[in-house]
């Protein structure tokens, strides 16, 4: 009960600024549905989708899948970010490592991450660990390069001030270089936030997933439960939108000095 109340309040707060626009989209959808189309199987009415949406979300029918996807998303983002930042610092510190790893990392960035799924499946086996590992891998790849680039491009004057004021190497790293690399880190974070969700959902559709919104999506398509398919797409959209909003809010609070410069 408490969870449902919390979910409803959160949803209303998130969508409040867009209620009018959402209403207009639903009206247009209903109009197209009523006037033009007859294939109600592939193009259900907004009412049936909305009722399925609330039923799934508040009837706790997909609670397990929702929590599973959110868990995988949280773990892969956290683990990937920590290792991505650490690798970024190491790459910035050791030029030889940077020159060796950069072309390799750039090569792997060019490969669609989903193409690596079979390899990850072989290494990590069936189960959620594979999804998490692949998403974390993408986080590491997309965060380490901008972080290392940001650290390597610390302004000459910023370093000069720290040297003159006799700051230790640790102080220079944490209080100067990392702070100056924050804008680059947030560019990477915004990218990985979207990419990780995509990867989690897509890999949940593949073989080996036992739960998750991606699995619910593929199951709904197999059973032709089209209102459910649309409703889950909406839920995934809301998760993605909330994640971007969260990163953007943290960015605004953390590097307000950069956006206002």
């Amino acid at each position, binding site marked *: 009960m408490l969870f449902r109340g919390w979910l409803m309040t959160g949803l209303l707060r998130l969508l409040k600024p867009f209620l009018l626009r959402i209403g207009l989209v639903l009206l247009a959808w209903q109009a197209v549905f009523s006037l033009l189309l007859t294939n109600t199987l592939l193009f259900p009415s907004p009412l049936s989708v909305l009722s399925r949406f609330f039923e799934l979300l508040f009837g706790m029918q997909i609670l397990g899948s929702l929590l599973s996807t959110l868990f995988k998303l949280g773990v892969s983002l956290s683990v990937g970010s920590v290792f991505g930042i650490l690798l970024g610092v190491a790459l910035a510190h050791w030029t030889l490592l940077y020159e060796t790893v950069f072309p390799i990392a750039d090569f792997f960035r060019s490969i669609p991450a989903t193409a690596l799924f079979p390899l990850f499946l072989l290494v990590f086996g069936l189960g959620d660990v594979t999804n998490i590992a692949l998403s974390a891998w993408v986080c590491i790849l997309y965060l380490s390069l901008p972080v290392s680039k940001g650290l390597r491009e610390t302004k000459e*004057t910023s370093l000069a001030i720290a040297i*003159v*004021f006799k700051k230790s190497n640790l102080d220079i790293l944490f209080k100067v270089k990392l702070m100056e690399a924050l804008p680059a880190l947030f560019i990477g974070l915004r990218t990985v936030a979207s990419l990780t969700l995509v990867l989690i959902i897509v890999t949940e559709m593949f073989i080996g997933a036992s739960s998750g919104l991606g699995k619910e999506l593929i199951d709904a398509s197999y059973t032709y439960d089209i209102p459910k398919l649309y409703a889950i797409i909406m839920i995934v959209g809301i998760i993605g939108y909330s994640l971007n909003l969260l990163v953007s809010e943290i960015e605004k609070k953390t590097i307000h000095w950069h956006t206002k410069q």
Partner: protein
Amino acid sequence: MNLVSIDGLVKTYPAGNANRTDASVTVFDRFAFSMKKGEFVGIVGPNGCGKTTLVKLIAGIEQPNSGSISIFGKSPEETRIGYVPQHTGGILYPWLNAVENIAFAMAGHETEAKAGAMGALSELGISHYADSFPYQLSGGIKQLVSIARAKLFGPGLFLFDEPFNSLDYHNSFLVENALLKLRKENATALLVSHDIQSAVLLCDKILVLTKKPARIAMLLPVNLPGERSIDMRFSPELNIVSGKIFNALQGMADDRIVALA
């Protein structure tokens, strides 16, 4: 006793990244210079002659190839120096407010450092900017905060690198007043400036450097009263010295630019 003694200074940048040319560049070749405690010395010279490099060498930001730099008998690394970098290079850390920027220079407990920083801001009459971030400050106020930071950290020797660069008349006036106040307090300072009149107004002697490798082309004593004020900017004595410096610099101007003129 000399406060700053430079002897046999050689500074060469190897070809490549550092000087963006295919050949090595010698900025100083057995350069010697000294200044006494309580002196304000101005350095002027053609663009790229090594004025900023000299400041960086004295501050310990860059290392000479050979020769010695001593400040009260110690090396720059062992001395606390009040360095005020060029405004255009990011004179303050954008992620710290004014008081935190000053406190950054201080070692020890944060509360004590901030109390000291507040005192330094009050002395310059800008304590009301304590919580402002650099993006909220004008160029002149940023310079004043940087001067307050230098004053708190290394009041024994100030190094000003183009303190009037990119400042409008009002902001130049603010900075000039702050420097006149330091002069009144018997501070020792080396001032690099393209603003000849300000340099003459503030300094006891002016060093005119030649093009690279820099030598002292002229050492001009400024025969103005010890106690200076902004009004003297328009005095005949000041303009006579400024004229001599201007003529010396004209003689060193780039031949191609002279031809165009």
